[in-house]
């Protein structure tokens, strides 16, 4: 049976970016989540936070003449300054995170499980993981969204009954956005809310390593 097409990275980012309300303070993890910055819903002002002490930065610099050598986000990427931007220390930056002043964080994921546990730091094969700011963000943001491909390169599921990789943070994920579905972590289990066009709940369940509860109002993924 041929699998329906999966959402591409840009659409996935748009789906995650729906979460950003006007005025939201948002932290985007390295990898897929970074693209969310390009899809902030129109008419909304969003404050982007970068762990090393940058708040309210603009889009990625595309040309040398846009580069201010002192305005980088994590990952050595120069970004454009933006009015209202603030520079901070690392400790103040994480006072913001730990203190619950981040409204939404979108993080990459290696595994998410039924308990909302997240593993996203320890790439198999590597001798150690890169924690970065993920433990603080996942634990303390008001809302934690994981944006990841639904399955690993070898086809194995990344939404699982119980994470087998080292945990970044326990019981922290609110929503999982993948290339085939939008799933909420609820007390009643993993709730399948939306599916990619052409995908059925059953098809999503087949590529998922945990039992999904199907939302009564299950619908197709929409953007905006």
């Amino acid at each position, binding site marked *: 049976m041929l699998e329906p097409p999966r959402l591409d990275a840009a659409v996935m980012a748009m789906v995650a970016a729906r979460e950003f309300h006007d005025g939201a303070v948002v932290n985007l993890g390295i990898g897929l989540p970074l693209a969310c910055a390009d899809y902030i819903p129109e008419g909304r002002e969003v404050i982007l936070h970068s762990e090393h002490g*940058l708040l309210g930065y603009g889009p990625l610099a595309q040309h040398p003449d846009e580069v201010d050598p002192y305005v980088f986000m994590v990952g050595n990427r120069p970004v454009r300054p933006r009015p209202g931007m603030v520079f901070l220390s*690392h400790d103040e930056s*994480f006072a913001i995170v730990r203190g619950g002043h981040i409204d939404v964080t979108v993080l990459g994921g290696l595994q998410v499980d039924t308990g909302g546990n997240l593993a996203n730091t320890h790439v198999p094969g590597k001798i150690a993981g890169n924690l970065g700011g993920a*433990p603080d963000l996942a634990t303390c943001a008001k809302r934690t969204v994981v944006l990841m491909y639904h399955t690993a390169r070898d086809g194995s599921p990344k939404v699982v009954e119980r994470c087998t990789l080292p945990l970044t943070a326990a019981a922290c994920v609110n929503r999982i956005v993948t290339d085939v579905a939008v799933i909420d972590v609820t007390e009643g289990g993993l709730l399948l809310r939306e599916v990619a066009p052409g995908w059925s709940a059953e098809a999503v369940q087949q590529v998922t390593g945990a039992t999904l509860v199907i939302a009564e109002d299950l619908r197709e993924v929409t953007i905006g």
Partner: protein
Amino acid sequence: MIDKVVATFDEAVADIASGARVHCGGFASPFNMPSYLIAALARLGADGLTVASTSAGTGMANAQQLREQLAPIVAWPMDYWDPGLLAELGRIKRLITTFPVSTGHARMWPFEAALERGEVELELIGQGSLAERIRCAKAGIAGFYTPVGPGTATAEGKEVRDFDGVPHVLERALHADFAIIRAWKADRYGNLVFRGARTFNETMAGAARVTIAEVDEVVPLGDLAPDAIHTPGVYVQRIVVRPAAPAQRWEDPC
């Protein structure tokens, strides 16, 4: 008269002994790393160091790769050296960090390779707890309870206690003998002004017995406005000025 300016980088780090604990600032940009202090420490030859740093550092080969990769938009400086240089030279015994290994398709970092060879110790911790532990050293606090860590490897061997029904981990102050940091401007009192994200450079100032700041410029006392100073001089013991023309090799005295 107070004058914390030291003539050379080699003089600034001369008393960092083998086995010392060193906090090293900077992160996420080639323009906020205390590169000349790292190079001087490499020249000094002190080894068996315990280093705290956001990242293990890319080392020389990877820095060259990043330089080429970013060339279309950023002129990555030639005089960029990070803790990876110290790892490459085998000077680090133990690293306390949040980013110990390379990501994506980058080649292995020097520390990572040493870790695989079993030559070094790693204490892995998230950025928020690392930052707060270092601030505690500056601020005279012995330890603090954070909600970050319970249920993960970070909490192993540490006290976990509930506050208002939420488990918290007891994290302890992380002191150092020396902190090496990078700032933009300084005055002779050691007051510092940074440019851009201040990273661990601001956090580490005052968290060590001796804080040494690498700066672009020393300005006359009074030129820095009292409400624009980020780090008060009481946290800083030594100031040293970056050369006007970038050094080409870390081996060159400076």
